[in-house]
């Protein structure tokens, strides 16, 4: 049942299971490999550092709110020592600095997603692995029945499995990367959890279930599975279910293959709970979760002659409440809202959201920086959040002439576009997220910085996801990129930004102020300690 790949025992403490069980609690009957797994995890999850009393410096000399929270200052704290893939935490004596800085390509996190309750957090990486974290409940034992979840905000590894393997398309002689492009959770309907994960070509539905009982007392086999000697059996017994250590099983339930010619960039589960869409560069397909051999093509922007190609689809999402509406963004910076009731093939949009281009700011790279890299509906379903290379924009569904809000994420890069083009950074696709009350938007930048913007005040704050400043329970300092004027202590110059440290993927808890930031191969989880619960407005 469990096939351990050769690298499961690698000395760097990486852990993988092949779509099977992952033992969470200590068990005396575990094999050596599982014990090494557990030790690595326990080191990671221990937060033994004392709480630091560092106060967040506004950075800009402003007091008061960083925005998101109506009452007082928000202080983002680290709640979990970062999970770093590939770090051997068991040999502190060995100088691991060079190992730490060397990032295996396969360990780079490529997507982060909370489930609908926020209890589970799934991450996918370039090696095709999915790691699921579960929120630790502080209350144990009796109070568990009360259904209380603790305030800890700590997330521990729940399960790890290999979702996709490298594949090869023999027809086109193309290698298909195993990198997980997107993970989306399904709404929970029973005790098990379901998630969709996709690479460039194939979408898979995984079932994550717990098992804490197992049958014991078989007649023909003993507890280890060996056949009993029949002469020793004197009576028949009925196997009974006995409680056992909690085991998390992950099994593939559906494989949705061969639906896409181009690279899949988005998946989105419909609010009807039965269908989902998958979008590649030129087409969007709608699938039924129970049917794998058929899908409906609902958008096709491929021109008859590929020479006439002018734009591609970059992201797509279903409306959170209306199961007939979805939106897709294009590389030209436009958004199209489509209503599936209008026609079977939604090539003709219901609404086109486009901002007229400013002719004064035209450059060689105008097309590249206007390409939308991510689009997200607000939780209310009224607004759209888009990210292009330099800005984040909020659009009102009722107004298609232009965005209602525009936030400059890193405008200081506008003069550096030529060199960013040379080193390919200009093609980076940043994601953007809403908070649970749609009052704050967040997106990533370079140098391990990420930015939050408060929609009410329009102010933005820059925070950093970096191990040196992220001791557990430490409060995040706000950072600033120096672009002129009075230089403050701690300001970072534009030329000293590290463009290899980019924050592309992130997620915000659906109901609380907990955020998960993926920084290359590290995952940071921050929680607002001042206002852990989002206050509804």
């Amino acid at each position, binding site marked *: 049942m469990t096939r351990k790949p050769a690298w499961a025992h690698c000395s760097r403490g990486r852990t993988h299971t092949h779509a099977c069980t992952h033992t969470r609690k200590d068990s005396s009957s575990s094999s050596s490999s599982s014990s090494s797994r557990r030790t690595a995890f326990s080191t990671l999850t221990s937060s033994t550092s004392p709480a630091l009393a560092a106060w967040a410096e506004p950075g800009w000399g402003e007091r008061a709110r960083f925005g998101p929270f109506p009452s007082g200052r928000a202080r983002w704290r680290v709640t979990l020592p970062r999970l770093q893939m590939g770090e051997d935490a068991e040999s502190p004596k060995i100088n691991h600095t060079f190992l730490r800085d060397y990032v295996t390509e396969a360990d780079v996190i490529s997507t982060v997603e909370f489930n609908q309750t926020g209890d589970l957090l799934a991450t996918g990486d370039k090696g095709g692995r999915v790691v699921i974290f579960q929120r630790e409940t502080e209350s144990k034992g009796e109070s568990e029945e009360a259904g209380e979840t603790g305030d800890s905000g700590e997330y521990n590894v729940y399960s790890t499995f290999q979702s996709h393997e490298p594949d090869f398309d023999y027809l086109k002689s193309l290698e298909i990367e195993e990198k997980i492009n997107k993970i989306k959770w399904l709404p929970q309907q029973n005790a098990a959890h379901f998630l969709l994960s996709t690479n460039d070509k194939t979408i898979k539905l995984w079932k994550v279930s717990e098992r804490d009982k197992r049958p014991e007392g078989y007649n023909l086999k003993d507890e280890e599975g060996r056949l009993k000697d029949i002469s020793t059996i004197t009576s028949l017994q009925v196997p009974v279910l006995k409680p056992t250590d909690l085991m998390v099983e992950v099994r593939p339930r559906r494989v949705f293959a061969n639906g896409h010619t181009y690279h899949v960039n988005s998946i989105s589960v419909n609010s009807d709970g039965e269908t989902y869409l998958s979008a590649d560069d030129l087409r969007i397909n709608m699938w039924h979760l129970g049917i794998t051999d058929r899908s409906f093509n609902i958008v096709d922007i491929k021109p008859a002659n590929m020479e006439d190609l002018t*734009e591609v689809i970059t992201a797509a999402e279903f409306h959170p409440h209306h199961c007939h509406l979805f939106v897709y963004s294009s590389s030209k910076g436009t958004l199209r809202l489509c209503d599936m009731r209008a026609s079977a093939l939604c090539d003709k949009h219901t609404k086109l959201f486009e901002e007229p281009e400013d002719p004064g700011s035209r450059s060689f790279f105008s097309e590249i920086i206007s390409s939308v890299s991510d689009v997200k509906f607000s939780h209310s379903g009224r607004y759209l959040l888009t990210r292009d290379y330099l800005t984040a924009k909020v659009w009102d569904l009722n107004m298609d002439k232009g965005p209602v809000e525009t936030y400059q994420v890193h405008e200081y890069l506008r003069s550096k576009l030529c060199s960013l083009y040379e080193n390919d950074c200009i093609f980076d696709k940043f994601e953007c997220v809403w908070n649970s009350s749609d009052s704050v938007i967040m997106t990533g930048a370079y140098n391990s910085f990420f930015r939050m913007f408060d929609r009410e005040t329009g102010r933005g704050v820059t925070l950093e996801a970096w191990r040196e400043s992220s001791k557990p329970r430490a409060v995040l300092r706000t950072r600033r990129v120096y672009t002129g004027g009075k230089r403050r202590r701690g300001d970072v110059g534009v030329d000293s930004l590290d463009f290899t440290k980019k924050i592309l993927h992130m997620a915000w808890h659906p109901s609380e102020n907990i955020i998960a930031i993926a920084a290359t191969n590290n995952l940071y989880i921050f929680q607002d300690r001042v206002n852990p619960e989002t206050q509804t407005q």
Partner: protein
Amino acid sequence: MECAFDAQNLISISLRKIQSSRTQRGGIKLHKNLLVTYVLRNARQFYMSKNLSQTQRTHHYEDVAAVRERQEYLELTGSFTELADDFYCNFTGVESDTWHCGAHEPHGQPAEVAHQDASACAMVSPNDSDLMVSEACWSCADKSSWELPIPNTQANQKTVLDLDTHVVTTVTNGYFHSDCCAQPKQPQGAQCYAKKRKMDTSYHIVDPEFYLPDFGPVPCKRMRTDDDSYSDSDQLDSTNISNLISVLGSGGLSEFVSWQQTDLEQIFAAQTICLKHTLLTGSGWTRAIEAF
């Protein structure tokens, strides 16, 4: 806007990006390559607008210089194998006995041939008849808004492979043309690439665009057109970017990288010179992505 030097720099950087993307793991990223061609287009537009005034003055000088460079370059590469010859021949449009899809003849203005449908395509202008009829799909000249108004008197052909249907079609491009006779042209178009395909596999670098599932290696010599006579400089005029890119995508260029790095530089140097010439003469060229 950056100065003209940056435009040239950008063009060569973009070409390298396109070329390297063809060997990247995971297949060609359509989005990224589309954006790169936008940069190419913008740089070219800027370059053209800047050099337009100088065109008449320096035209013939460039012509001679480029031709000389090209010929020298051809001599340099005489030691390469057949695959190399293919590449260079195609690049210059000269002596193309295996890659005649890229070969073209300076013929009448396709811009004036306003065909709109397949049937009209069959009735091409008389001077087109000696072209490879199988691939001569002169379709309407539907100029894009950003095309230069300078008329291009030479036609050029490109072959594109549709990744969905695996149909190989050829398009003519003095301006943007839409290929309206895709289906029936498949056999001939396919065969013309068969030889290329055969050579590619021997190097274990198979360019996805030229994969043809149903056709084995067929010598293309018999598909060769009759009139291979053309003037050198005229050929160079119509060697547009797309031809350049399609050749880059043949997989042959990657071989050069492995053989000798310095030759790669020469290749790009020569390309830049010819590119400059091409830009200056204002020959139309289409976007670099033709085989996605």
